[in-house]
C-alpha cells in the first residue's frame, strides 16, 4: 500500500494516439502531452434518488457514468499545432487540429509512469475545451484540455 507520488516527474502521463496501441503508455509513436500542470480523471456516475412510502430514507440507483479527462498544460508548439508524423494522426494534427476535425482520440492516463507493472486507464473520446491564454504576468501560453470520453474507462497495467 502506498500513495501514488508524482513528484519524481514522468509519473502522471497522458498519451494520445489514433489507435489504442499508439495511445498505450510508453508506446512508440504515441503522443505524450508535455508540460501538464494537473490532470483529473472524472468517472462520476449519475444518481437517481426516489422515495417510497414504506421507508424513511431515500433509495437510489446509479445511471451511466459521465467519463471525462481534464487537464491544464503549457502549450507546446508541436503538440498543439502538430508535427509531421506518418503513423499517429493525432500527433500529426496536434491538439488543435484533432479537436477541429473532431477526430476520435485514443488515450491512456498512466498514474505511476510508463514502466512495467504500472497501472493506467484508457479509453477513447474527443478533444474539447482548448482555450489557450497568455498574459504579460505569466507570459507563456497555457490551455485547458478536455477529453470527452466516448464509452468506458478501462484499467490495465503496462
Amino acid at each position: 500500500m502506498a500513495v501514488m507520488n508524482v513528484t519524481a516527474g514522468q509519473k502522471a502521463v497522458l498519451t494520445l494516439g489514433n489507435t489504442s496501441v499508439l495511445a498505450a503508455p510508453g508506446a512508440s509513436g504515441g503522443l505524450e502531452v508535455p508540460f501538464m500542470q494537473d490532470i483529473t480523471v472524472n468517472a462520476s456516475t449519475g444518481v437517481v434518488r426516489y422515495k417510497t412510502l414504506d421507508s424513511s430514507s431515500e433509495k437510489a440507483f446509479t445511471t451511466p457514468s459521465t467519463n471525462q479527462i481534464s487537464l491544464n498544460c503549457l502549450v507546446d508548439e508541436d503538440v498543439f499545432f502538430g508535427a509531421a508524423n506518418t503513423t499517429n494522426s493525432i500527433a500529426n494534427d496536434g491538439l488543435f487540429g484533432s479537436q477541429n476535425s473532431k477526430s476520435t482520440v485514443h488515450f491512456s492516463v498512466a498514474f505511476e509512469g510508463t514502466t512495467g507493472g504500472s497501472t493506467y486507464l484508457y479509453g477513447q473520446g474527443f478533444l474539447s475545451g482548448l482555450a489557450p491564454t497568455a498574459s504579460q504576468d505569466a507570459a507563456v501560453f497555457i490551455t485547458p484540455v478536455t477529453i470527452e470520453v466516448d464509452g468506458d474507462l478501462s484499467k490495465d497495467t503496462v
Partner: protein
Amino acid sequence: MAIRDTLITGLTANLASSNVSVSSELPFNSGGEPLYIKNKKYVYIDQDNIDVTELYGTLDGNEIYETETTVTAYLTVDAKNQPSDIDTIVNTVVAERLGVSGPHIKECEVETEITLDYITYNFDYRFVTV
C-alpha cells in the same frame, strides 16, 4: 552581458551632452561614504540582483522559470542648485530601461531622498524574462 553593462553603455551615450556623467565603478563606500554621494553629478549603477523563481510547475518535471533582475542606479546632486536639465536627466535614466533587449517586463521606479544639502535619486530597475 549583464544588464548593468547595457545600462552603463546606453546612459553614457544618452547623457553625454547633459550636466551629469556616468561612472563605470560600482557605488562602493569610500571613506565611509558611498561614491555617488562623494562624487555628485555622477550616475552610479549597482550590480545585477537576480532572482529565479518557478513560474509554472509541471507534472513531467519540465518547470518554467522566470528570471527577475533588479538593478539600482544612483545620482546625487546639489539640492539647492540642481542641474538645469535634471528633469531631462531623470527621464533619460528612466527611459534607458527600454534599451535592454530580452525582458518582457521593463520597469523603473524613482525615489528621492534629501540629506543635508543634497538630493539622491534612486532608480530601481526591474526586468523580467521567462
